[in-house]
């Protein structure tokens, strides 16, 4: 238990070097060691998806990994999507406009799930969107406004790339 390991992890473009217990969860490392509390923990057993982050570009659940597994890897959290609340990215803007969030607790997980999805599938159908977010639980919205937000985001991204 008392063994300590040194790790270096790049989070949102910043290199962090820390000494951690091998059992420390990656979600706890991000939230409590680095103070990046935008990543939320809803179930600690990999079902709800609230703790989703980008790990080397892929959406993964940070509650199902140990911090030591992130050694020498690159992570992006919700704090890495935009510089501040005054400058939202297209996906965040779309969630705002379409009322894609209520309590907002699950929202960072949805955003991080959708970033790589929209990169791979810039013009998704409703069915594809619903399938893409089916691993993220939201208890407030009933999902419809989230689906609307993803469609809006896709349109915004298409507009800005054309």
């Amino acid at each position, binding site marked *: 238990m008392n063994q300590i390991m040194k790790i270096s992890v790049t989070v949102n473009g910043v290199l962090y070097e820390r000494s951690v217990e091998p059992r420390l969860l990656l979600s706890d490392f991000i939230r409590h060691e680095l103070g990046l509390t935008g990543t939320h923990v809803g179930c600690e057993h990999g079902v709800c998806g609230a703790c989703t982050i980008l790990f080397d570009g892929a959406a993964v659940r940070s509650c199902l990994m140990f911090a030591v597994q992130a050694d020498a890897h690159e992570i992006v959290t919700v704090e890495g999507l935009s510089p501040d609340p005054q400058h939202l990215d297209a996906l965040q803007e779309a969630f*705002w406009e379409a*009322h894609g969030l209520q309590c907002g607790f699950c929202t960072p997980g949805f955003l991080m799930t959708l970033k790589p999805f929209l990169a791979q599938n810039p013009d998704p159908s409703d069915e594809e969107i619903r399938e893409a977010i089916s691993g993220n639980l*939201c208890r407030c919205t*009933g999902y419809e406004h989230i689906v609307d937000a993803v469609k809006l985001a896709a349109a915004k991204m298409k507009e800005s790339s054309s």
Partner: protein
Amino acid sequence: MSKRYIGQRIKRNEDPALLTGQALFTDDVHLPGMLHVAFVRSDYAHGRIRSIDASYAREMPGVVAVYTAADLGAYWRPGPPLVSPPPVKGAIFNARTQVPLAKDKVRHVGEAIVMIVAESRYIAEDAVEQVFVDIEALPAVVDLEKALAPDAILIHEDLDSNLAAYIFQQKGDYESARAQADVVIKRRLYYDHGIAAAMENRGIVATWDAKTQRLTMWDTTQAPVVIRNGMAAMLGLSESQVRVIAPFIGGGFGPKIMMFYPEEVLLPWASMQLQRPIKWIEDRRENFFATTHERDQIHWAEIALTKEGRVLGFKDEFIHDTGAYDPYGLTVPINSQCTLLGCYDVPNYASEFKVVFTNKTLVTPYRGAGRQHGVFVMERMLDIAARQLGIDRAEIRRRNFIPPDKFPYNNELIYQDFVPLVYDSGNYEPALDKALEMIGYEQFISEEQPRLRAEGRHVGIGVVTYVEGTGIGPYEGARVQVESTGKVNVSTGIGTQGQGHFTSFAQVVADQLGVSPRDVHLVTGDTDQFHWGTGTFASRGAVVAGNAINAAAAAVRRKILAMASRELEAPEEDLELVDGVVRDKKNPEFAIALKDLAAKANPLRGAVRPGTEPGLEATDYFGPERGVTANGVHAMILEVDPETAMIKILKYVAVHDCGTVLNPLIVDGQVQGGIAQGIGNAFYEKIVYDDNGQLLTASFMDYLLPTSMEVPSLDIGHETTPSPLNPLGTKGTGEAGAIPVGPLFAQAVEDALAEYDLEVLEIPLSPNRLFELLQSKNKDA
């Protein structure tokens, strides 16, 4: 006041912080030197504690303190009753409230027994494993009907039985109505409502500062002011020494207003004992058995009708499960009793219920708060009557609606707010017509369904109605201030859990003061900012706090007009508030900015007129004489695969009437989210206890929340019948969507499987349960 912003689909002020991970939730609070808590909880549903050996845990490195009930000394006492029973003649109510840590007995799985405080949560959980609690297991009371058997083991041994409460209420004379009826139908019905499962679990951070002699507490509560006052009393502090902050909260839905949870009582006390900040964050497993549930009722219902389908009377007896303790009084079963009659003009009603203690987690309100159970019973009985009498399902409802000229309509029953349930206003037929039109009712029944049936498909339609008593008192308050920056500060005592208060309340203020909603800054749930109020529950935020904010803003508006009238030398009636200035309507160049007026209202030198209050600020309150009644109609087309008993929702329509809508975007979101929870309740979610009182569904792999694949796209329609009971004309809508989904599923499934002649008298269903029902029919055949 102009209505420039009220009623607009304005995107929310709170969202940018939430979308960038900047919004503060309770677990985001980090204080230097903070300690962490984990609990040893009961593995047994019912048992006597023989001994607790925590000696090893106390010695572990990093463990700072270990508390059992004995270690709490005089601080150990059962929680205060939160809601007293309603004043109904002949009522029985045995208050037995939860304890901070179990002392002699455990009464449900997950009840806290030992609190461990350590330098980290990891160490605290290590120590939990090293505490040895010796419990003599007792038989568990699990089954509602067996709970009252003469030989049932007693959960609270100082009582004669496991009866927690009994209430009988009536209007008219059911027996004489029954005697005149052409048809009398009786059924036993079962309705089980699940758990709230907010995405954020509960959590508390408490810190006692000896230098300022103040306690600060971040708490995932829906009622921060009540927590502050209660904590002060329990800890022997003055109320001004306690600050409770309910920051951003990741969903509430009812259970976050249970007061007081053991953890809420223990953390602040431990912080004072140890002189260090302290944090406890519930994990999901704890949430399943330590956060309150809503569960099941068994009803024995009887409906008496004429052959034309007019309901002459209704009789209902039911049993309600309150779990191991009953601090929340009778709110849930009273709601079931009082909501059963729904939209219908039923002259004779007799209803009695018994509340029983069981060895299960406590039951307190969860979105709908017992209304579902009552609505299910009435809607199902109407469906059965319609079938028996050969009347269309929509038509039998229409024939029994309370007509618009009968409002206010007195149901003569004492409601959860302790006054007779009087529906303030309503117009039910247009909502039904709109829903039928939106779902294409006639066309589906006459053309589409026969065609699809001919193709061998099992498609059915359902249509149900409901009312929701909302916006109950006693009161809320607010303070509104125009700053010398021109921005407007608003503070109110309720907590917020995602309802959009920062925006809809800003719209109300913006219309009163002629400013942009973006310039209105709202603080909710910080008792240092506002310390009057009761909380966010019973779909009352927009009604009670909304009207308090409106009243306070109107008072500020009056101050502005009076002062501007002097400054501009123009009569008040010639002035208007637009775009942050007060100006003369006829000569708009005669104007003064609100920020300049605010600065003038707070002079730093010189003299003011005697009696002058500084600033452009006012505090006001709103307390309605009684609640307001919202209503709605849901309709659905559903397909069932009889082989797998899996369902697919082909179309879902909801028409609702919550009076004046402050922000339709937010209201749509509330209705959609409510329906999603209703769908979960109807077909996916089920809390399962075994015969020993063990909870078998304590993870999201076993308790199935609906995902984006189960919740369909929804069509939502609005009707507007403003309430006469408050100046804004609003009615609550927070719970509405969740209420009628169970009976809607039951009806549509029956219709889809018409050839099987099923009668669905229970919710939740599931593919398994529906398969069993179909099998039983196959056996009969």
